[in-house]
């Protein structure tokens, strides 16, 4: 009889895990439990192509629904798990149903951080985490609306880029002194601020958000200095919180994420976890970390599938990320340290350049803007622990392969 695998969470990690596990051809009886109505889908387009209306919803699906039917993967959608009973090896759904498991995988992802200010629950205040969120923004916006984006992170800036191109008046309000401050060095932040301003986006830095006001729906944002900004819609992108509650309540170890080992195992041998919700070791980086990325979700899900299909390979990948804004394709690899040396390669005004991060000459991270060859090389250097000479790296007369 095939073993029962329950996957909690129908996001990128859950979807890929089911897909990969089905390669065991009948060895596992696979069920994916998801709280949304959609089958597993890609979230990156939500703030890009889907928001822009360039792709239909179905294009975001990881696989067509038929794919799951053909492989006897059960998608239990619109369902939420209430509790995990480890002794009984069962989960209870919110509708009271219980389901038993032999192996359990927590792919619970993250949820948006809600903004704790007055008026936050007014209609017209949006977040971007789900397909329905993005469709909600599209439906709410009339032509040439005033849109205020709270937070100059990737989600906020990607949405700003899409919406300003559609003819809306867009302001971004960022609390810190630069955009993308959490993930890139200052030159990259300044470059993106400049590009957004040139495109017509107003960017306010060092500016908090005091409250949202409006009669029955949001009409304006009052910033931390008391200034009012007209808003037909607000999009809040101030980060996410890992969904660890189910794991914590059943006694699994958590610390900024569900703690797993290099095989994505929790401290219960029958429970695995993958994706944004995990805090995991990475031998390549020599540290534990929690990542919010598609790459990590996919690679950890594959790691679980490989363990369950008796081909265990420890997880140790160079983290990588991307962001599309306007004509700018930003590709990032590695995790920069706060004290790393920052080396700019190329001319920012050409909109094609890269920024490398070095720790004692060793490459720790790369941000490449419209510069795929630098990205590819940088990622390789990070994986191999290569040391480079900063002056040669900055010299574009030296081809990247010869640095």
């Amino acid at each position, binding site marked *: 009889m095939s073993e029962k695998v329950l996957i909690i969470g129908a996001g990128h990690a859950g979807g890929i895990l089911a897909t990969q596990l089905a*390669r065991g051809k009948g060895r596992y009886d696979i069920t994916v439990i998801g709280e949304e109505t959609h089958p597993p889908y890609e979230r*990156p387009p939500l703030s890009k192509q889907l928001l822009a209306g360039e792709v239909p919803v179905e294009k975001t699906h990881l696989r067509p629904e038929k794919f799951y039917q053909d492989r006897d993967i059960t998608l239990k959608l619109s369902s939420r798990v209430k509790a995990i009973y480890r002794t009984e090896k069962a989960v209870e759904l919110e509708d009271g149903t219980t389901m038993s498991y032999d192996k359990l995988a927590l792919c619970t992802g993250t949820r948006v951080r809600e903004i704790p200010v007055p008026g936050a629950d007014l209609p017209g205040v949006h977040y971007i985490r789900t397909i329905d969120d993005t469709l909600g923004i599209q439906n709410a916006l009339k032509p040439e609306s005033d849109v205020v984006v709270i937070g100059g992170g990737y989600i906020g800036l990607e949405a700003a880029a899409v919406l300003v191109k559609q003819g809306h008046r867009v302001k971004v309000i960022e609390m810190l002194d630069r955009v993308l401050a959490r993930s890139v060095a200052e030159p990259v932040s300044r470059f993106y601020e400049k590009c957004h301003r040139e495109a017509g986006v107003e960017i306010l830095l060092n500016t908090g958000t005091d409250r949202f006001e409006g009669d029955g729906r949001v009409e304006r944002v009052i910033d931390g200095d008391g200034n009012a900004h007209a808003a037909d819609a607000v999009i809040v992108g101030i980060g996410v919180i890992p969904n660890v509650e189910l794991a914590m309540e059943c006694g699994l170890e958590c610390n900024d994420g569900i703690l797993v080992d290099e095989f994505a195992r929790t401290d219960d041998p029958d429970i695995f976890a993958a994706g944004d919700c995990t805090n995991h070791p990475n031998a390549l980086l020599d540290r534990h970390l929690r990542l919010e990325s598609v*790459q990590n979700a996919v690679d950890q899900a594959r790691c679980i599938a490989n363990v369950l299909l008796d081909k265990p390979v420890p997880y140790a990948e160079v983290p990588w990320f*991307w962001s599309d804004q306007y004509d700018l394709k930003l590709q990032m690899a590695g995790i920069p340290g706060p004290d790393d040396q920052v080396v700019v390669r190329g001319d920012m005004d050409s909109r094609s350049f890269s920024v490398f991060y070095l720790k004692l000459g060793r490459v720790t991270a790369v941000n490449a803007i419209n510069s*795929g060859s630098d990205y590819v090389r940088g990622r390789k250097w990070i994986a191999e622990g290569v040391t480079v000479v900063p002056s040669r790296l900055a010299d574009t007369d030296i081809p990247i392969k010869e640095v």
Partner: protein
Amino acid sequence: MPVIHVTDRAGNKTDLNANSGESLMENLTANGYDDIEAICGGGCACATCHVYIDGDWAGKLPTRDVDEEDLVSGEGSYDEARSRLSCQIEVTDALEGMTITLAPEG
């Protein structure tokens, strides 16, 4: 609906009834070719949909643009003559009978 002949990583040969107008990557993932991960969803931001175009078909396709070239050439399994990212190939009826091999990882 051109038929494309696919050899997967394990060496299994199958025929894919492809939809014209969609990318080769989309056709492969939708039809259960699980060797194709396509992590970035077709944005030409990774190289996890790498395939080899067999025979003289490689020369018949539009050439790689610079983004695709940068990414695919960074793969350990890169073959200058045959390597493509399948997300960058739009399936058309003209591809009837094309033969491809799903490239090994790395």
